[in-house]
C-alpha cells in the first residue's frame, strides 16, 4: 500500500472509530482519573463542584487507617472493613454454591433427553430478569406472616416457627444466606449453559477408554470431567468475585444492608456489602469519600486479578 492510501485508510478507520472512541475517553477513561481527583476532596458542605475542599490523603487515612483508643488499636472506619468481610462472605458462599448448582443442572441435562431445550431455557430464564424485581419478589416470599414461605411452612409446621415469626431476612444470621439462595437460583442457569457446552465438547471416547481401564463413574467425574471443566470454573470464579464486589441491587431490594448486628461496640449491617456501603456514602453526600472507597475496591480487584493471572499463567501452558 502506498503512503497516501495508507493515510486515507487511517483516516477512515478513525472516522469509523470516533463515536466510540470519544464516548470511551470521556465516559470511561476520564472518570478513572476524575475519581482519583475527587478522592482527595471533601464534599461535606453540600453537593456541587464549588463546595469541594482539598483534604489530601485524609479520606484514605480514614478508610484504611487505625487509631489508638481506650487501650486498643481500632479501625478508623470499622464499617468499611466489615463491609469487605461481608463481601468476601457473600462471594465465598455464592460462588461455590453457584458453581455447584450450575454443574449439577448441567450434569442432569447432559443426557439424551426429549425437551432438553425446554429445560435449558427454563433454567436460564431467571437470569435475564430484572435484579431489583427478583429481589423484591424474594423479599415478599421470605416475609414473615404473609410471605409464601411463611404460609407454606405454617401449613406444615404450624404458626410458631422461625419462617412465620421472624423470616429469614430479619435475622442477622440467615439474611445473607437467604440472599445467596435467591441469587444462586436466579443465576444457576447461566453457568449451566456454560458447563453444558463444555460437557458436550468432551469426546465420548475419553469415557469409553476410562471404562475399559475400569474407572468408576465417580472417578471419571473427578479425574476427567472436572479437570476439563476447569476453564469454565475459573471464569465463573472471576466473574463471581467481580459480581460480589459490585453487588448492590440485590442487597438494596432485599435487606437494605440490615438487619443490624452488634459486634464489640459497633452496630453493623449484617448484609452491608462493599458496594452497598459505597452507595450509602454516596447517598449521604460524602462523594469524595465514596470516590476514595471505589479506588480501594479497584485496588482489591486488580490485586485479586493479578494473583489469579500469576497463579494460572503457568497452568495454561
Amino acid at each position, binding site marked *: 500500500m502506498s503512503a497516501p492510501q495508507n493515510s486515507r*485508510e487511517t483516516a*477512515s478507520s*478513525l472516522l*469509523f*472509530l470516533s*463515536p*466510540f*472512541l470519544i*464516548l*470511551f475517553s470521556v*465516559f*470511561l477513561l*476520564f*472518570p*478513572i482519573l*476524575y*475519581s482519583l481527583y*475527587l478522592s482527595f476532596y471533601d464534599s461535606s458542605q453540600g453537593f456541587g463542584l464549588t463546595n469541594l475542599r482539598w483534604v489530601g490523603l485524609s479520606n484514605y487515612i480514614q478508610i484504611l487507617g487505625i487509631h489508638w483508643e481506650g487501650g486498643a488499636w481500632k479501625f478508623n472506619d470499622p464499617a468499611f472493613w466489615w463491609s469487605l468481610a461481608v463481601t468476601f462472605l457473600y462471594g465465598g458462599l455464592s460462588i461455590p454454591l453457584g458453581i455447584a448448582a450450575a454443574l449439577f*443442572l448441567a450434569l*442432569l441435562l447432559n443426557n439424551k*433427553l426429549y425437551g432438553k431445550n425446554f429445560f*435449558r*431455557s*427454563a433454567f436460564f*430464564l*431467571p437470569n*435475564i*430478569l*430484572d435484579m*431489583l*424485581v427478583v429481589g*423484591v*419478589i424474594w423479599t415478599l416470599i421470605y*416475609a414473615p*406472616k*404473609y410471605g*409464601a414461605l411463611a*404460609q407454606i411452612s405454617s401449613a406444615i409446621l404450624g404458626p410458631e416457627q422461625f419462617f412465620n415469626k421472624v423470616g429469614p431476612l430479619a435475622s442477622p444470621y440467615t439474611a445473607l444466606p437467604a440472599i445467596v439462595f435467591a441469587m444462586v*437460583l436466579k443465576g444457576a442457569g*447461566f453457568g449451566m*449453559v*456454560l458447563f453444558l*457446552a*463444555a460437557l458436550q465438547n468432551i469426546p465420548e471416547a475419553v469415557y469409553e477408554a476410562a471404562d475399559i481401564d475400569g474407572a468408576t463413574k465417580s472417578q471419571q467425574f473427578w479425574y476427567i470431567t472436572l479437570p476439563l471443566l476447569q476453564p*469454565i470454573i475459573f*471464569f465463573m470464579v472471576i*466473574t463471581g468475585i*467481580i459480581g460480589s464486589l*459490585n453487588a*448492590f441491587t440485590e442487597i*438494596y431490594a432485599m435487606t437494605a444492608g440490615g438487619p443490624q448486628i452488634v459486634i464489640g461496640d459497633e452496630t453493623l449491617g449484617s448484609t452491608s456489602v*462493599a458496594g452497598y456501603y*459505597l452507595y450509602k456514602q454516596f447517598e449521604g453526600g460524602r462523594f469524595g469519600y*465514596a*470516590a476514595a472507597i*471505589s479506588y480501594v*475496591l*479497584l485496588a482489591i*480487584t486488580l490485586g485479586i*486479578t493479578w494473583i489469579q493471572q500469576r497463579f494460572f499463567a503457568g497452568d495454561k501452558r
Partner: protein
Amino acid sequence: MNTHTDQADPRTPAAQGGSPLRVVIFVTLFVAMIALCVGICGQLYRFLTMVAAAFAARGGDPAKAGEVMKNMAWMVDALTAATALALASIAIRRWIATHVEQRAAFLRTFFLYLCLTAGVVVVLFPFFWMLCTSFKPAGTELLINTSNPFDIVPAEPTIGNFTKVLKLDAAGAAASVDPVEAKKNFGTYFMNSLVVASLAAFLVTLFASMGGYVFAKKELPYKPQLFGVLMATMMIPGMMYMVPQFFMVCSMGLFGTKLAMILPHLASVFGIFMLKQFMETIPSSLIEAARIDGASEWQIFRVVIIPLAMPIILTLFLLTFLSHWSNFLWQLIVTDFENPLSITLPVGLALFRGQYTSDLGLIMSASCFSIVPIVILFLFAQRYFIEGMTQGAVKE
C-alpha cells in the same frame, strides 16, 4: 448370551439385582410423577381460568370472577386428569416396552426427568407466585386455601391491582387533576424504560459495529495497543464509575433526563469485543471485491459488513436492551423524583414499594410490568440471549 453381556457390563449392576426392586422403584417414581403432574398442571390450568375470569368480570368484581372460576373448575379438573392419564399411559407403555436389561437405564432417565421438572418448579416458582399474587384483591393476600396450602392461585381474582398501578381507577382519576401525580404510574415508567433501553441499545450497537469493524478488518496505527487498553478497562468494577460519572452528568446539566441515563453507557467495550470476534470471520475477499467495484468505505460497511454480522448485532442489541432495562443503580442516582418523565421501571418499583410496603398485590402487579415483557421477548429470541450471553465466556 444375555448373561454374558450382564457380566461384561459393570455399569448396570442393577441388572443382576432382583426385578421386584426395580418394580418398586418404578411405582415410587410413577406416583411422584403423577403428584408432580397434578400439582403443576392443576395450578397452571387454574391460573389460566383465573386470568380469563379476572378479565371477564365486569368492574373487576372479585366475587363474580370467583363465580366464573367455580363454574370452570370441572374443566380444570378434567384437563388435569387427562394430562395425568396421558403421562401415566406413556410411562407404563414405555416401561412394558423396555427390555428387562434396559430397565435400569429407563429408571435412571425417568428419575432424571422428575428431578429436572422439580428443578424447574423451584426456579420458576417466584415468578408464578408473582403472577398469582398480582391478581389478588387487597386484603386477601394473606388468605390461604386451607384445604390445600400449595394452591396459590387466588379463588376470587381481580384486575384491580393493575388498574390501580396504571392509575386508571377512581383514585387515579382523582389524581389526574394534578398532571404530574397522574403521570406517576407504571404506564409512564414502562414507556420511559422502553425509550431509554431501545435508544441506548440502538446507539451502542451502531457505535460498536463501527468500532468492531475497524478492529476486525481495518488498519490503524497502534491498533493492538488500543485494543489492549479497551480490554483492560473491562476489569474495572462498575461501582468505580458511580461518583465521577454522576458529577460529570450533573455538571453537563443533564440530571433527571433520559440522556443522563444512557450517555455514560454508550461506549460498550464488551460490544466491541463481541463484534470484532465475529467480524474477523467475514472473508476479507468480500470487502476487497466491493472496494474494486468502487464502493465507498461507508457503503462497504452498510452493504457488506452489517448484513453479514446481523445475527451478532441483533444479539448485542438484545443484551444491551436488557442491561438498560434493569440498570437500577445508575437510573436511581440520576432520577429526579419530581419529574415522572425521568422515572423508569426499576426506580418506579423501588419508589412504589416504599409507599405500599405490605400491599403484595399492588407490588406484584407493578413487578409484572418489568418481568412479563422480558419473558415474552425471551420466548421469541431465546437463542440470541443464551448464545450471546455465554459465548464471550467460552471463547475467553
